[in-house]
């Protein structure tokens, strides 16, 4: 008899505990809300700041946290103590993907190559532009940047927080050289890459002997220095106003205009801005694939192995005759080169660049993509870029939410808010990134994936 009567009592206790936790969270939330949410500041008509009480918003926030924490506490109790494991995919899915990585790579490649056609089929000529440009091109730029930075952070283990500097070098190289000397996109693309690599070497040389977070901060400083110079050196870069009217890339000399010698006319097609977008899409796809190809190749070469060895243990590398400075420098400047390629593509695509596009936040986003994807994993980086960039782009599409929250509701306002929050959540959920196992570069009998627990992440 006794156990039966005790059972509901135990249940009750659990409820109490969960309620207590939820109440605590609610009180904290209330405290957090008091100044910053409870009163909104607003300039009135006389341009004097006034306060608007917003206790309804506070009530909502407290209620949501209370219920959320309560449910979470119950869930944790059900699972018992210890960290609750969240699984989006059934166990072994990633292993399955990795075993058949060649197949999936081919399938992914096929999808990417046919994406414009799929987009046109599904969204029509009018709607496809948005999909190819905002999603296709935009995501691929970040995939490429992620893959470029992956060489530095993921393989060599050097924490670079100023990667956007090389993106800027590439973009300004293209913009200035194209405008002032009229050189074509196809000449300037490799040139901007080389210039960025040169800058990478120049900046890398003094700082690469620094370790750990110091390197991160110096690279951040360099990123900011380059941006501030672009802002302040008006004669060179036109400052805040940026550079507009950057020549657009041509299809091997044929411009994408409505003119008689334009792309559409030459090929006997009806003029549409879509052709340029599709062309740009294939250009960035090609560049991204080049980055992936080079990365895969280099991993199997001594330099790539040395990068990974450097990430594992720098001192051991030195004892084995590896020139660590040169090895780091190659990783740094190669990463910079791909950043430069992406930058010159960006300038050519936008037709307008300004220092606004090269703020620290961009570096942070690219780094986040690399870490969230799983350092060193090309697939992981590609997935992370698609989720983070595609996801925030998707928020632009959420106009129907206005019907729920009223016409003042603007989902794009919450884009970066959600982005930041997602970064925190993904890190807590998977600290080693989405795909964290390492694939060996050479094997005798069989290729076994190496679990993330053994792989070091570098100290530099």
């Amino acid at each position: 008899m006794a156990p039966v009567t005790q059972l509901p009592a135990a249940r009750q206790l659990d409820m109490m505990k969960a309620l207590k936790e939820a109440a605590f969270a609610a009180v904290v939330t209330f405290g957090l809300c008091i100044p910053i949410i409870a009163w909104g500041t607003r300039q009135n008509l006389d341009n004097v700041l006034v306060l608007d009480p917003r206790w309804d918003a506070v009530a909502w926030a407290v209620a949501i946290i209370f219920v959320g924490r309560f449910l979470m506490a119950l869930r944790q109790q059900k699972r018992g103590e210890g960290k609750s494991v969240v699984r989006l995919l059934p166990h072994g899915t990633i292993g399955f993907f990795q075993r058949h990585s060649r197949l999936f790579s081919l399938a992914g490649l096929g999808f990417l190559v046919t994406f414009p056609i799929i987009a046109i089929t599904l969204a029509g000529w009018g709607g496809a532009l948005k999909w190819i440009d905002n999603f296709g091109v935009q995501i691929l730029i970040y995939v490429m940047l992620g893959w470029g930075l992956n060489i530095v952070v993921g393989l060599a283990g050097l924490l670079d927080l100023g990667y956007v500097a090389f993106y800027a070098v590439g973009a300004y190289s293209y913009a200035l050289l194209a405008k002032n000397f009229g050189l074509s996109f196809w000449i300037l693309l490799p040139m901007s890459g080389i210039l960025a690599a040169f800058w990478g070497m120049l900046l890398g040389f003094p700082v690469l002997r620094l370790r750990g977070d110091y390197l991160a901060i110096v690279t951040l400083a360099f990123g900011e220095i380059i941006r501030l110079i672009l802002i302040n050196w008006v004669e060179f870069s036109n400052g805040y106003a940026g550079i507009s009217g950057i020549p657009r890339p041509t299809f091997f000399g044929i411009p994408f205009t409505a003119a008689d010698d334009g792309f559409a006319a030459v090929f006997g097609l009806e003029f549409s801005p879509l052709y340029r977008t599709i062309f740009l899409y294939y250009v960035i796809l090609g560049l991204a694939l080049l980055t992936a190809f080079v990365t895969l190749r280099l991993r199997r070469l001594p330099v790539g192995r040395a990068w990974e060895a450097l990430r594992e243990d720098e001192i051991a590398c030195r004892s084995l005759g590896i020139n660590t400075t040169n090895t780091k420098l190659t990783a740094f400047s190669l990463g910079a080169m791909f950043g430069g390629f992406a930058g010159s593509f960006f300038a050519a695509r936008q037709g307008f660049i300004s220092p606004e596009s090269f703020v620290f936040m961009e570096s942070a986003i690219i780094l986040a993509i690399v870490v969230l994807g799983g350092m060193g994993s090309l697939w992981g980086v590609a997935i992370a870029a698609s989720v983070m960039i595609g996801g925030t782009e998707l928020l632009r599409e959420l106009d129907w939410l206005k019907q729920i929250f009223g016409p003042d509701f603007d989902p794009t306002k919450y884009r970066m808010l959600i982005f930041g929050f997602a970064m925190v959540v993904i890190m807590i959920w998977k600290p080693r990134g989405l795909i964290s196992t390492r694939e060996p570069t050479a094997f005798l009998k069989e290729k076994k994936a190496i679990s993330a627990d053994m792989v070091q992440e570098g100290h530099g």
Partner: protein
Amino acid sequence: MEVFLQQLINGLTLGSIYGLIAIGYTMVFGIIGMVNFAHGDVFMLSAFIALIFFMLIASWFGAGLIVLALIFVLVLAMFFTSLWNWTIERVAYRPLRGSFRLAPLISAIGMSIFLTNFVQVVQGPRNKSIPPMLNKSITLIDSATYTVQISYKQIVIILTTAILLAAFWFIVQKTSLGRAQRACEQDRKMAGLLGIDVDRTISITFVMGAALAAVAGVMYLVLYGVVNFADGFTPGVKAFTAAVLGGIGSLPGAVIGGLLIGLIEVFWSAYFTIDYKDVAAFCILAVVLVFMPSGILGRPEVEKV
């Protein structure tokens, strides 16, 4: 000479603010070896909290006793900012303790993005300004060509900074809490084995860092009278520069670094060109790190083979 003296006063004022923020960086880095990227945004948030409380107090009691109001705002801002930072540590960093080194860094960057945009969403993207206060100033030297003045604001800022620093220095050096903090800095695992509540100690570190950032936030608001949601990043990076310059992990180092950065910035603007003042700060950061990675007061890191 007069110009120099005036800039010295201005530089010390600005440097005090940087120093206060820098302590938050240096304490967190010292105890968990993490660059708390969101700290600059916590500072910005505290300035907003202070702004709201200033306005509340002004509308409830009128703007009569400005000093009393200032003390109230200071205490309230310190409390609520600490609560924020406590929550941030609890939610975004604690689950990642003992995890891979980059995970908390990315989490902190995410938190920084979140905070910036959170304030933008709830308080709007425009500059928020309050009517100027403590406008009087004392004339120190009144020569024919140049008047050297120290304003009440500057006196308040320098004095408050000095008093609070002394108080925190006392806590860290003389109390058992400070001892626990220093023990955790040396060896967190061992400190835990010896019965120190490591989680609690780290939480308190974040709370203390936030409280000082809140002081900086209030002072920033008093000095400039205006704050924007994007104001966290640049002072944050400069304060971090200050922490590194002074030797990361060292409390007096952070203050010295902050004062130096403030002075350099002000003198650079006065004698060279205001455009490149931030470039100067970042260049100093790079140069210091490359040639003197352990900073002014930091312990040099010996490479163990």
